[in-house]
């Protein structure tokens, strides 16, 4: 049984979409079923190791007019997407790994811009702790149930979310000022 089929068997109805690019299987599931689905993947599917967790801002990807029409799988897929209403702006990808079979699986969840919240998976994998904080720091996606939802890399007073596509690379001239009263 191939990885795709196995994953489809486990996720059943929760599975929204399954794609493959260069051998990396990517599964899309919805926000509501996220923790449940990941739990099943962990327990039934054997994906017991969370490699990483990352956010992606898709605003540029959909805004950009296609210059070339490509005949690859992904290209046609994206064109189909373009026809409908614009998909949610953000997306969070969970990189799972099965320690027994050494297979990797990407799980992605889309998060709309007006409701930037996701359930936290720190109860499943403690390794999601900092990556979730970082995703909050960089994209502003909040994770409910996270023990310490604070900025991680930027300082606390920082206002913007730097990895969003509309934030300029060179920043907006923020400076850090410190009052030295360490509580």
């Amino acid at each position, binding site marked *: 049984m191939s990885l795709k089929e196995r994953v489809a068997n486990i996720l059943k109805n929760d599975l929204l979409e399954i794609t493959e*690019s*260069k*051998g*990396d299987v*990517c599964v899309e599931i919805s926000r509501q079923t996220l923790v449940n689905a990941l739990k099943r993947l962990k327990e039934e599917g054997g994906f*017991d*190791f*969370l*490699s*990483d967790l*990352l956010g*992606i*801002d898709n605003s*540029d*990807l959909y805004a*950009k007019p296609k210059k*070339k029409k*490509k005949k*690859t799988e*992904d*290209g046609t897929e*994206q064109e189909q997407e373009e026809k409908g209403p614009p998909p949610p702006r953000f997306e969070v*990808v969970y*990189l799972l790994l099965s*320690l*027994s079979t*050494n297979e*990797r699986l*990407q799980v992605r969840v889309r998060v709309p811009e007006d409701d930037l919240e996701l359930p936290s998976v720190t109860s499943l*994998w*403690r*390794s999601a*702790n*900092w*990556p979730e904080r970082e995703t909050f720091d*960089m994209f502003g996606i909040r994770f409910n149930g996270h023990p310490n939802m604070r*900025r*991680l*890399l*930027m*300082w606390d007073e920082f206002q913007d979310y*730097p*990895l969003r596509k509309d*934030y300029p*690379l060179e920043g907006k001239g923020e400076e850090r000022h410190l009052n030295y009263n*360490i509580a």
Partner: protein
Amino acid sequence: MAKEIETVCITTGPTEVGDYVTLNIGPIHPAMHGTLRVITKTDGETIISAKPEIGYLHRGVEKLGENLTYSQFLPITDRLNYCSAICNNVAYEMAVEKLLGIEVPPKAQLIRMIMMELARIADHEVCVGILGVDLGALTPFFYLIIQREEIYEIFEWHHGARLTNSMGAIGGVEADLPDRFHEKWPRMRDSIRKANDDTDKLLTHNRIWMDRTVGVNAFCGDDALNWGFTGPMLRACGVKRDLRKNEPYLLYDKVDFDIPAGKHGDVFDRYMVRMLEMEQSVKIIDQAYAMYKELPEDAPLMKKVPKILRPPAGQIYHAIESPNGELGFFIRSDGSDKPYRIKIRPPCYMVYQAFDDLVKGEMISDLIACLSSLNVIAGELDR
């Protein structure tokens, strides 16, 4: 990959009730490697809690990657784990090659392997040396750093830089092994072993060293997996997992080497795993070099790639075993010449987030020992 070595774990630690002294360690502190900061609560010398704060070296590498072309980003990867820049280079190159769907010629793969293992030795040497320095034994550091200089010399003669190597290019490597390597390797193998022996003599069986390291920050294997540990840290906890064996890349499946593993995941085991891995790396280089010699001299080094890379749309994740553990590159391409999103999975990021759990209930001196043995490199931690 289940745990192969069984250990008994018990729950211990201080209770977080009472009035304690807050001690801020870092970011400028001799043991904090320049940019790490830990805010500890201490009861006398015992640590009640230790909250690491990171981001003091957050340079926006991922954002920068979205604004540079694929080949321009290669030099930036040097600056992630600067102790073993070559591993970063190769990891990135391999990720892009996976995206492009090309496979590099075997000779290039062998050169990459040799250089990566040299970088691994260099990285472990620094880690062990710094661990020694932080525990008060300065001399081994100097013996190891000399070996590192020799390795640097080979890097310099191969691709023209000592530390930030920018080795190779997407599609292969640009230069054959330098004459220096052919001349030096037989001697260097011995001198690397000698430096390790010297370190071993000065530290391993010394009671003071053992008291400082054995049983300090011991960690359970299943906890380590849950926290996302990889690399020497995980192996020290008794889980034999190494991407070079588990998900072989390059020609690692054709060479014969062992995975050293510890038992308790304490500082001593981490130190021993690193020491033994250096030995294994020497073994790998020997085998790879033998394989290299069998190839004809004009065997191709590069796969033909266009000058401006425009990988097809898609998203991939590729990970290799860097000296610190699983170093992964997640790249999403939208078909343009710049990556749409690059995410780096640094190995020590996952390890360092468990720091509070690692040092709780130990003493301040152990915190220092623990931090050095984790080999947290701020460049890849904060990116």
